[in-house]
């Protein structure tokens, strides 16, 4: 189809229809009556412009399907002035057709012309015809005599693709396909032209600068101003012509390489000149090539931000739909591959874990383009066609009935754009901006509107992530919004349309959930971002996949992410964004790394590790809050890791004498670790720091106390108590007579560093250890902090001695009762003094507890003191004595352990919940018992097997002894509790080194 447009006002447009393939060239008749065009369909057609009809048509050319495949450009040309002849390059010849009759009146050929003629151009006078051929041959005929007057070979043999005569007729400018512009000069054909003998010598190097200097500037000016001042230009053109004539031009080819933009305009300018000067004489070939360049300055230019085409909807984990073999989905469950070629239109579903389901092969008769895969079902969808609605198909393979498949037709005019599967539901976003929910069995559920066209969706468990276009992006940016919905019992929106941050000029590549259920996504710059629930649902960049790529064109195609272990699963693609289906790509694993500053330094590394650990363990709290089972071992492990990192950072800042930073770090620590930090600070003689830390510790402990007040069952605080108590207890047993030795032992454990000096102080003042500063006014809070542990133990332990008084609000009360209790507990621990295992077992236990921050109930403290005594007692007494109580409870298995524990703790429970009846007490006790750690429970069960009946005896004995040393008791306890952390610290320092 050819369109004719009136340039001046675009008012008149004519359309000439008839070509069945791309048009190669068009040319106007000089009288603007006709128009000739050549096309890839092989025809050369002459049109009548006025009535838009085809005048004549010749099937002259070879048929091709695209311009790039055409053998010749077949640039036609009407003879200027009268336009009597139309020259058509046909293969190696040029046919001449007479205007009006459209008969072939002649043909120009040359035996040297062996390759197709690309372009023809009439001389301004109309006598000569120049032809440029593939291979670089320029031939000029005298049309009247049909004789060749000039032959010229392009010096490099490049194909000539355009020709233009100088208006004077003495020069021909030509360009070749390699982007060079040449000038054929000194054609002495303006006269009779019968015997032109010019033989241009190639002098390429010379004259480049001349050419520019002489012509360029002025031509440029003219080219730019030609719309404004045609008159002036014409004058200038004449000047220029004169110049040219003045130049002694004795046959030389001027050529220069490297086409530039201004060369184009130069070309334009000169051609324009020709047009202006000669009016209708100008050759149409040149005119056609001028058109776009001349039109350019007329177009209004908008320099502001350009809207970005919105990215299309896609399925995360799929390769583009136009591929014949593609991944329709690759996720953590399996792979859905789609084949769409001549032989086959099929879908293969394969599961990573064949235990889920065996592989499936489906014929894709509906033409599905989207898929998702979960442990329960395969969801497929196809866009609508002319007569068929868009369909959603679900293969619910985990269904237990016989119908494993359902299908839903969407309303007319509504297309599925994105879909995803969650646990028990399927979601579909459509072109009608609707989000439709289905149950996995095919029941239609909620429906809601989306704020914008969907980009992609992802589901996990009960969460649904929807990414959509929030607005139009500008300058290559996408403006995406994100919604995070949660279904299940309490349906709610976690994120309501916040903008989705993307790297500059990138688009979304993948979005999904980690295996633990945290949303994350990848943009086209390879940046992986993860939802940070702890920071108000913000997005934190966790990995840059491009950093690990070897070459610029390599990419990682993300298929999944795991938080524990921290893995980004992706497929490395060499030189592409998508992997091919064959050979089957292998999944690689990338580590995560937060883009913190200075990660080459030790400090930066630790900070990165710490925050990454914090970020990647956010999911624990999320999971527990949404009622999932949490792997407690992993959680405690991660907490421990974080606290260790904090301690390392603390030690590092200490070394660097950054005390303020130390305090900042301490604020991130848990109370236990702060006590460690205090030890560390005091040992490295940073008294000021230690003092500040102790304030923090106090703050934390009071905070904890406050936290536990409202709660029925304090968790962490009880743990803290137990740890404090546990640490105290083994020492108490020895303190009576072996205090000195004990201390020395501890010293040895701690490398004996500067402990000698403190030792005496410690004996005198229990608080000194905490702060490292004896007798200072600020010590009071410190002391309280130090004490708070044992007091709490007392609090928890007290009900056994002073029953009924479970909660003491007054600290003084606490102290008193603790005094009372201390001997008790000490006596309980006493018998263990004899057996060797005593100091070992409980101590390690205590340590584990304080570091692991295990959740244990109030009672663990109380229980443990006794429990510690038990093994010892077991050694003294034979199991047979223990048998009766065990038998009393009638069960010998784990129950007996619980029973024992219950006996110990019943009073506490009753005290805590006075209004409970017996069964409720047991229930409550069961609950509490479960919160005990595994090895504690084990201890209880072991105890049950060989229980000692004479704990009471032992206690009595102990009590007597302990009364004597009661005054020392608090000191000793203080010391031991502080010793223990320091020994921990020394162990830590050791490992660090």
């Amino acid at each position, binding site marked *: 189809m050819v369109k004719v447009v009136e340039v001046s006002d675009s008012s008149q447009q004519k359309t000439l229809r008839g070509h069945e393939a791309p048009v190669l060239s068009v040319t106007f008749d000089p009288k603007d009556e006709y128009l000739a065009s050549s096309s890839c369909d092989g025809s050369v057609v002459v049109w009548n412009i006025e009535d838009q009809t085809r005048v004549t048509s010749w099937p002259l050319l070879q048929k091709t399907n695209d311009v790039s495949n055409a053998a010749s450009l077949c640039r036609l040309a009407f003879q200027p002035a009268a336009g009597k002849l139309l020259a058509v390059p046909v293969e190696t010849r040029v046919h001449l057709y007479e205007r009006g009759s459209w008969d072939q009146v002649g043909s120009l050929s040359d035996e040297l012309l062996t390759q197709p003629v690309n372009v023809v151009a009439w001389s301004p006078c109309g006598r000569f015809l120049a032809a440029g051929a593939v291979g670089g041959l320029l031939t000029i005929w005298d049309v009247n005599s049909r004789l060749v007057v000039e032959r010229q070979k392009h010096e490099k043999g490049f194909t000539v693709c355009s020709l233009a005569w100088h208006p004077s007729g003495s020069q021909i400018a030509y360009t070749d396909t390699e982007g060079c512009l040449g000038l054929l000069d000194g054609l002495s054909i303006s006269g009779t032209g019968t015997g032109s003998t010019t033989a241009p010598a190639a002098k390429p190097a010379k004259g480049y600068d001349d050419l520019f200097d002489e012509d360029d500037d002025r031509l440029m000016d003219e080219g730019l101003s030609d719309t404004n001042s045609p008159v002036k230009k014409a004058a200038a053109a004449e000047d220029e012509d004169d110049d040219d004539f003045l130049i002694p031009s004795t046959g030389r080819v001027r050529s220069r390489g490297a086409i530039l933009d201004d060369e184009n305009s130069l070309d334009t300018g000169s051609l324009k000149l020709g047009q202006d000067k000669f009016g209708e004489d100008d050759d149409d070939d040149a005119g056609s090539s001028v058109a776009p360049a001349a039109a350019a300055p007329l177009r209004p230019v908008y320099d502001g931000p350009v809207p970005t085409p919105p990215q299309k909807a896609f399925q995360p984990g799929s390769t583009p739909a136009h591929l014949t073999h593609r991944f329709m989905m690759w996720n953590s469950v399996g792979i859905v591959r789609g084949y769409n070629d001549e032989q086959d239109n099929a879908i293969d579903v394969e599961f*990573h*874990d*064949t235990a889920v389901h065996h592989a499936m092969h489906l014929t894709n008769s509906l033409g599905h383009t989207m898929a998702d895969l979960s442990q329960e079902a395969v969801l497929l969808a196809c866009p609508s066609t002319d007569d068929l609605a868009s369909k959603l198909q679900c293969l619910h393979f985990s269904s237990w009935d016989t119908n494993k498949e359902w299908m839903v037709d969407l309303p007319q005019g509504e297309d599925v754009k994105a879909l995803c599967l969650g646990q028990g539901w399927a979601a579909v976003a459509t072109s009608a901006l609707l989000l439709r929910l289905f149950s996995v069995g095919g029941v239609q559920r909620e429906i809601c509107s989306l704020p914008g066209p969907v980009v992609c969706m992802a589901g996990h468990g009960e969460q649904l992530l929807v990414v959509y276009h929030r607005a139009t992006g500008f300058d290559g940016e996408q403006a995406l919004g994100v919604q995070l919905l949660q279904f299940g019992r309490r349906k709610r929106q976690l994120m309501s349309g916040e903008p989705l941050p993307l790297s500059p000029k990138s688009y979304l590549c993948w979005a999904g959930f980690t295996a633990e259920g945290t949303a994350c996504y990848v943009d086209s710059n390879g940046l992986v971002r993860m939802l940070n629930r702890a920071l108000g649902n913000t997005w934190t960049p966790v990995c840059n996949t491009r950093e690990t790529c070897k070459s610029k064109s390599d990419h990682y195609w993300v298929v999944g992410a795991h938080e524990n272990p921290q893995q980004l699963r992706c497929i490395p693609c060499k030189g592409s964004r998508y992997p091919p289906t064959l050979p089957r790509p*292998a*999944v690689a694993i990338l580590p995560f790394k937060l883009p913190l500053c200075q990660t080459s330094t030790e400090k930066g590394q630790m900070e990165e590790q710490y925050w990454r650990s914090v970020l990647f363990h956010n999911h624990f709290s999320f999971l527990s809050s949404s009622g999932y089972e949490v792997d407690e071992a992993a959680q405690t492990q991660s907490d421990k890791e974080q606290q260790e990192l904090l301690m390392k950072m603390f030690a590092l800042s200490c070394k660097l004498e950054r005390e303020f930073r130390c305090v900042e770090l301490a604020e991130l620590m848990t109370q236990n670790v702060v006590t460690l930090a205090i030890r560390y600070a005091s040992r490295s003689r940073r008294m000021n720091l230690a003092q500040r830390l102790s304030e923090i510790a106090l703050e934390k402990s009071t905070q904890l106390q406050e936290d536990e007040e409202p709660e029925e069952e304090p968790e962490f605080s009880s743990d803290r108590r137990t740890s404090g108590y546990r640490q105290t207890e083994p020492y108490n047993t020895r303190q009576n007579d072996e205090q000195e030795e004990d201390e020395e032992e501890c010293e040895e454990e701690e490398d004996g560093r500067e402990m000698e000096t403190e030792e005496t102080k410690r004996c005198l003042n229990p608080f000194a250890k905490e702060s490292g500063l004896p007798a200072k006014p600020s010590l009071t809070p410190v002391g309280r902090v130090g004490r708070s542990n044992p007091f709490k133990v007392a609090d928890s332990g007290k009900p056994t001695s002073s029953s009924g008084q479970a909660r003491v609000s007054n600290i003084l009360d606490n102290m008193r009762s603790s005094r009372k209790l201390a001997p008790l507990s000490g006596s309980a621990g006493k018998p263990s003094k004899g057996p060797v295992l005593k100091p070992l077992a409980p101590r390690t236990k205590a340590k584990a507890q304080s570091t692991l921050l295990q959740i244990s109930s109030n009672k663990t403290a109380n229980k443990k003191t006794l429990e510690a005594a038990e093994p010892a007692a077991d050694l003294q007494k034979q199991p047979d004595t223990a048998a009766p109580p065990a038998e009393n409870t009638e069960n010998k298995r784990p129950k007996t352990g619980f029973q024992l524990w219950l006996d110990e703790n019943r009073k506490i429970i009753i005290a805590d919940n006075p209004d409970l009846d017996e069964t409720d007490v047991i229930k409550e006790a069961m609950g509490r018992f479960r919160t005990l750690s595994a090895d504690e429970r084990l201890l209880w069960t072991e105890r049950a097997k060989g229980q000692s009946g004479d704990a009471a005896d032992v206690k009595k004995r102990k009590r007597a002894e302990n009364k004597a040393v009661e005054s020392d008791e608090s000191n000793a306890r203080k010391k031991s509790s502080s010793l223990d952390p320091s020994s921990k610290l020394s162990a830590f320092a050791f490992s660090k080194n």
Partner: protein
Amino acid sequence: MDPSEVEFLAEKEFVKIIPNFSLDKIYLIGGDLGPFNPGLSVDVPVWLALNLKQRQKCRILPPEWMDVEKLEEMRELERKEDAFTPAPSPYYMELTKLLLNHASDNIPKADEIRTLVKDIWDTRVAKLRLSADSFIRQQEAHAQLDNLTLMEINTIREFLLDSLNCMYKLRSNLQPGATKGQFGDY
């Protein structure tokens, strides 16, 4: 040494598999293996890989060198050089045989690889025979052969040792009455 014993040794080599089941770490005398996650590649010894493959529990990823282009390069190099070039793997022959026999569906262009490895093998064994021949011909006391794999040594060991023994006996019998010129006959 029996070729099957050499093959047995080769089965200790590690190869990557993609399991289609999930299993925690398994603790074996030879070391810990796993954990096995469906869809994630993991290194296991060949014997386990083949066992799992036979039970259709995994997909074997061919070793890096088991690639048509790399093998072609090696073949050319092997043909060009007079000495032995480093083998693609110390157990290349055994691994090729094992993997191609049991898991040819997981290895792209299995037939080509089989041919290429056979070519390399043939070239190397031909070299080995040639050097053994010249070794005996020139009556050298020792020879240095680098980059030989166990299987290659194994193919020639028995024959070479036996024949050298034989020749030694003959030579020592002949020694008293014979002149040196006669040895050339062997």
